[in-house]
C-alpha cells in the first residue's frame, strides 16, 4: 500500500483511493446532482458499483453484504432525498450493530444552511442512528475522516458511520496522504476481558447446576461461534440464542435449545426461567427476549460478556460483567472452566424438548408456511437465509436448520419490512458462491420489489420465496388475538401477481399452490441460476406459535397451533 507518498488529486478521487486502501470492492448506490463528481471518478475506477433502484435498498444491501461477509459494507447517495432515503437502512444497521459506511453528497459548503435545493441536514438527522458521523469541512481532512470512519464502523461494537461530502469538497485538489493509523482519544474499545472477572466467571460456571448460555448477535459479529460451542461442550451447558444469534450454534447440535423470547421454543423459555446461572454473550436482554422483567429468570445469577459497557446492567442486573471481545473472552474462559454438574439439568431440558417440540398443523391440500421453510431447509442446506419482517421471519427462524454463523440475516432490532430483498442482494454480491434465499412475506416484498430491476441488470441470482398469505400476517395475528379479530387494514389479498411481477422485470417467476409443488419450484429457482421469485400460496390465517404476549413473563406461553 502506498500510504506514505503524496500525490495531487481532487476530493472525489481521494475518496476512491481511500476506499481502495480500505479493501472495499463493492459499493451500492444511486447518483444525483451533489455526488456527480464522485460518480465521475468512479467511472474510471475498478470498484464495483451496484446501481439500486431506491437508496433504502443501497443501505440494506451494504448491510447484507456486511453481515454475510464480516467486512464493512458501503452505500452511496446524493444529498437531500437521496440521503433521507438511506435513513431506514442506516437505522436498521444501527439497531443490529452492523458495520456500514454511508457516503452522501451534500450541497457545496457556501450553500449549507441556506435551505438550498436538495439540502438536508443528514448529519443532524442521523445523529441518533449512527455510531458516528462527519460533515467534511476541509478537503485535506477527507482521507483522515475516511480512515476513522472505517475504523469506527468495524471495531468495538460495530455500527454505521456516515460521511457527508459537500460537492465543492469533492472538486477540491488536495495532496493525497492516507494515514496508516487513527488517533481517537475518545474512542478506545476494550477487547481483552479482565482476567480476574474471567476467573470468577469460570468458577461460577463450574459450580452451577443449571447453567444456560444465552448467545446474541455479538457472537456472530465477533466470529466467536466456534469458541461458544467449545465452552458449551466443555461445561455441558444448553445454548439458547436470540434472533440475532441464530447460527452461533448449529440448530441440530445436541446442546442447542433454539431461540428464546416472544416466539422462542417452550424449552428455551422454560430453561432460562429455571436456570441458576445465565451466561449472556453478546446479547442485550431486549424486551422481546426477557418478557416481563420482574419475573425474568428469578433464580439466576448473571454473567454478561459484552463489548459495549453500556449494555451491562442496562435491563437486567449483572453479577459478573466481562467487558471485551466475545471471541477472546470465551477462549480464555474455556481454559478456566471445569466440567460440570449439569447432567440432571440437561435431562430435564431434554424432557421438555420431547414434550414441547416446535410443531404446526399438518395439511395435505393447503400449504402450511412452516412446511415451506422446512422444504427450503432440506433443499438448500448451506444457503444464506435472509428474511423480511413478519410471521414468515419467525417461521424462518424456527424451522430452518442452520449450521453456520452469518447464514441467517434478518432485521432484529428495528424490524424493517423491505430489508430482506436488498440485504439478500448484498449477501449474494459478497458471497457469490452461496445460494441466497430471501424468505419474504407478500407485504414486505412489496416494500422493495423495485430491486428486481437491480438483480436482473446486474445478474445477481437471489431467490425470493414469497409466502403469500394475503395478509400483513403478523399484525393480523395480533388483531386476531388481542383485538377481537378486527382485521383493520391488514388484508392485502390480490395485491399483485408475483410471478408476472418477476417476469415483467425479466426475472424467473414460479408459483406453488399445492404442497407437492413447493419443493420442485424452489429447486427449479435455485437451479436456474437466475434471479427468481417463487410465490407460494400459503394458509392465510396460520399463526406463529408459541407466543408470549408482550409484557407477560416468558414462561406464560400461548399455544396457537389450532
Amino acid at each position, binding site marked *: 500500500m502506498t500510504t506514505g507518498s503524496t500525490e495531487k488529486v481532487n476530493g472525489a478521487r481521494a475518496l476512491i483511493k481511500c476506499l481502495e486502501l480500505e479493501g472495499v470492492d463493492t459499493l451500492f448506490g444511486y447518483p444525483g446532482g451533489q455526488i456527480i463528481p464522485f460518480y465521475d471518478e468512479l467511472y474510471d475506477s475498478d470498484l464495483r458499483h451496484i446501481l439500486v433502484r431506491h437508496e433504502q435498498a443501497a443501505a440494506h444491501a451494504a448491510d447484507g453484504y456486511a453481515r454475510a461477509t464480516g467486512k464493512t459494507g458501503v452505500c452511496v447517495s446524493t444529498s437531500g432525498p437521496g440521503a433521507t432515503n438511506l435513513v431506514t437502512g442506516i437505522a436498521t444497521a444501527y439497531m443490529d450493530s452492523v458495520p456500514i459506511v454511508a457516503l452522501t453528497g451534500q450541497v457545496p459548503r457556501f450553500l449549507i444552511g441556506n435551505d438550498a435545493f436538495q439540502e438536508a441536514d443528514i*448529519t443532524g438527522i442521523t*445523529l441518533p442512528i449512527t455510531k458516528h458521523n462527519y460533515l467534511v469541512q476541509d478537503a485535506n481532512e477527507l482521507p483522515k475522516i475516511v480512515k476513522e470512519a472505517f475504523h469506527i464502523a468495524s471495531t468495538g461494537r460495530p455500527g454505521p458511520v456516515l460521511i457527508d461530502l459537500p460537492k465543492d469538497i469533492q472538486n477540491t485538489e488536495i495532496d493525497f496522504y492516507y494515514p496508516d493509523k487513527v488517533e481517537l*482519544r475518545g474512542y478506545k474499545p476494550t477487547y481483552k476481558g479482565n482476567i480476574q472477572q474471567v476467573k470468577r466467571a469460570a468458577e461460577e460456571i463450574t459450580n452451577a447446576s443449571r447453567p444456560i448460555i444465552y448467545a446474541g448477535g455479538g457472537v456472530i459479529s465477533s466470529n466467536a461461534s466456534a469458541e461458544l460451542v467449545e465452552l458449551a461442550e466443555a461445561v455441558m451447558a444448553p445454548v439458547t440464542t436470540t434472533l440475532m444469534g441464530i447460527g452461533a450454534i448449529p440448530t441440530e447440535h445436541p446442546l442447542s435449545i433454539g431461540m428464546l423470547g416472544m416466539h422462542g421454543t417452550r424449552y428455551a423459555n422454560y430453561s432460562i426461567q429455571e436456570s441458576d446461572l445465565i451466561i449472556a454473550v453478546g446479547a442485550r436482554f431486549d424486551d422481546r427476549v426477557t418478557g416481563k422483567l420482574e419475573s425474568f429468570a428469578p433464580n439466576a445469577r448473571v454473567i454478561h460478556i459484552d463489548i459495549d*459497557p*453500556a449494555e451491562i446492567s*442496562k435491563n437486567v442486573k449483572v453479577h459478573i460483567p466481562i467487558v471485551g471481545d466475545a471471541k477472546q473472552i470465551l477462549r480464555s474462559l474455556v481454559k478456566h472452566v471445569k466440567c460440570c454438574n449439569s447432567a440432571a439439568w440437561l435431562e430435564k431440558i431434554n424432557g421438555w424438548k420431547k414434550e414441547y417440540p416446535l410443531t404446526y398443523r399438518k395439511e395435505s391440500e393447503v400449504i402450511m408456511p412452516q412446511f415451506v421453510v422446512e422444504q427450503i431447509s432440506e433443499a438448500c442446506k448451506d444457503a444464506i437465509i435472509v428474511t423480511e419482517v413478519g410471521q414468515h421471519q419467525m417461521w424462518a427462524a424456527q424451522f430452518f436448520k442452520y449450521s453456520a454463523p452469518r447464514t441467517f440475516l434478518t432485521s432484529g432490532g428495528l424490524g424493517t419490512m423491505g430489508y430482506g430483498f436488498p440485504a439478500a442482494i448484498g449477501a449474494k454480491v459478497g458471497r457469490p458462491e452461496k445460494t441466497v434465499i430471501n424468505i419474504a412475506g407478500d407485504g414486505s416484498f412489496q416494500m422493495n420489489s423495485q430491486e428486481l430491476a437491480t438483480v436482473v441488470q446486474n445478474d445477481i441470482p437471489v431467490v425470493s420465496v414469497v409466502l403469500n398469505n394475503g395478509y400483513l400476517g403478523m399484525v393480523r395475528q395480533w388483531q386476531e388475538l388481542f383485538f377481537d379479530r378486527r382485521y383493520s387494514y391488514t388484508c392485502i389479498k390480490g395485491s399483485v401477481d408475483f410471478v408476472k411481477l418477476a417476469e415483467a422485470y425479466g426475472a424467473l417467476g414460479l408459483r406453488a399452490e399445492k404442497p407437492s409443488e413447493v419443493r420442485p419450484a424452489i429447486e427449479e429457482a435455485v437451479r436456474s441460476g437466475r434471479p427468481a421469485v417463487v410465490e407460494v400460496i400459503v394458509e392465510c390465517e396460520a399463526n406463529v406459535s408459541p407466543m408470549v404476549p408482550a409484557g407477560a413473563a416468558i414462561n406464560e406461553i400461548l399455544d396457537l397451533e389450532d
Partner: protein
Amino acid sequence: MKHTLAVLVENKSGVLSRVAALFSRRGYNIDSLAVGVTEDPDISRMTIVVHGDDHVLEQVTKQLNKLVDVIKVSDIGGDEAVERELALIKVSADVNTRAEIIQIADIFRARIVDVAPKSMTVEVTGDEGKIQAIEKLLRQFGIKELVRTGKIALTRGPKKV
C-alpha cells in the same frame, strides 16, 4: 439525587448537539449545562448537572463515553469539588433603595456592575444556595431580569479529572 459531571470533549463543531441529543433521546434530564474551552484549546469541558439514581447515572456516564468525541467523563459532585455559578441580576432601584441593595450585595460579596437612575445590576458568584438566597432578598425591590450560567466545578487539591 443530583450529580455534577465533568465531561471533556473534542473542541469541534457539533459536539454540543451530540451530547444534548443523547440526553433527550435517552430521556435523561439535564438541570444545567455549561461549556467552555480548557487549558488545552483542542478540548472543551462541559459541566453537566443531572439528577437520577445510581442506575441512571451509570447509564448516562456509559452512554456519554460511547460518543466518539467524548474523551472523559467524571462525577465530581459533593465535598470534593469547588462549584460555582454566576448570576447577573437587574433590580429596580432608586435613591431610596440603592443603599440597601448595595448592603445586601456586600454581605454576599456580590458586585454592582451597572447603575442607572431606575435600576442596578448585581453580579454574584457562588453555589446554588447562595444565588438563591440573594435572589430571594432582592426580590422585594423588583427583579427586572435575571440570567444565570450553569454550574461549573473543579475538584479540590492538585488532582485533575
